[in-house]
């Protein structure tokens, strides 16, 4: 994984609403995430542990209207040992948004 990590220490933003992050890491505890309405990530979740952190942070982003996981799920399923990860991630996100 690339060593670039986007966090509050990198960029101090208060009005951020749309974030696209491809092939870099994100500090999921950053407070600016709470204001996001659109989030697109790709290649940011490569391990089940990343997915757990992501899923823990997702409900905190209460204004989120659009979530684009790009090829995150496909990327996960491409690794044989992580095929269960796709099911886990997809199922967890589905349950999160299913009324």
């Amino acid at each position, binding site marked *: 994984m*690339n060593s670039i990590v986007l966090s509050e220490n990198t960029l101090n933003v208060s009005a951020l609403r749309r974030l696209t992050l491809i092939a870099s890491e994100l500090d999921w505890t950053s407070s600016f995430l709470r204001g996001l309405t659109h989030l697109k990530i790709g290649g940011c979740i490569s391990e089940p542990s990343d997915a757990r952190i992501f899923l823990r942070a997702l409900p905190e982003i209460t204004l989120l209207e659009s979530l684009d996981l790009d090829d995150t799920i496909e990327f996960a399923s491409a690794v044989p040992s992580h095929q269960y990860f796709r099911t886990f991630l997809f199922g967890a996100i589905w349950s999160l948004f299913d009324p």
Partner: protein
Amino acid sequence: MYIKDAVTLGPKEKYGINGASRHAWIKLTQVFRLWRDIAICAPNLWSGIRISKRNYKWANAMLQRSQHTFLNVHVNFVGFTRRTRGKYKDIDTALSILEANLGRCKALSLYNVRSAGFGEFFPPPNHYAPQLHTFRIFVAI
């Protein structure tokens, strides 16, 4: 005003500020002097700034002409690494000015970012971007 409308409403492939023909809108300033004077004094025409190895020469002029308007900035880091950076001092200058104008960036897109490029562009401590609404990072793999 009319020039801005013409640029906005015209066919994107020919005149769009962010259209395929990157410098076509600059031709507006070359039609005749009146258009040039009007275009240069219209900050919104210069608020969409693309910085790359190929067009870095425009960045400084555009940042100045954009005056105090909000910016939509695209930076492409291809060919812009620590090793070759010294060869392109204009890019260094443009990025420094951009860094100084980060406070009025409404949208910022960084393409083909590598660790070195990003670290130099956003060195710690924090950079404050209070107007930043849209942020895109595409890391070069």
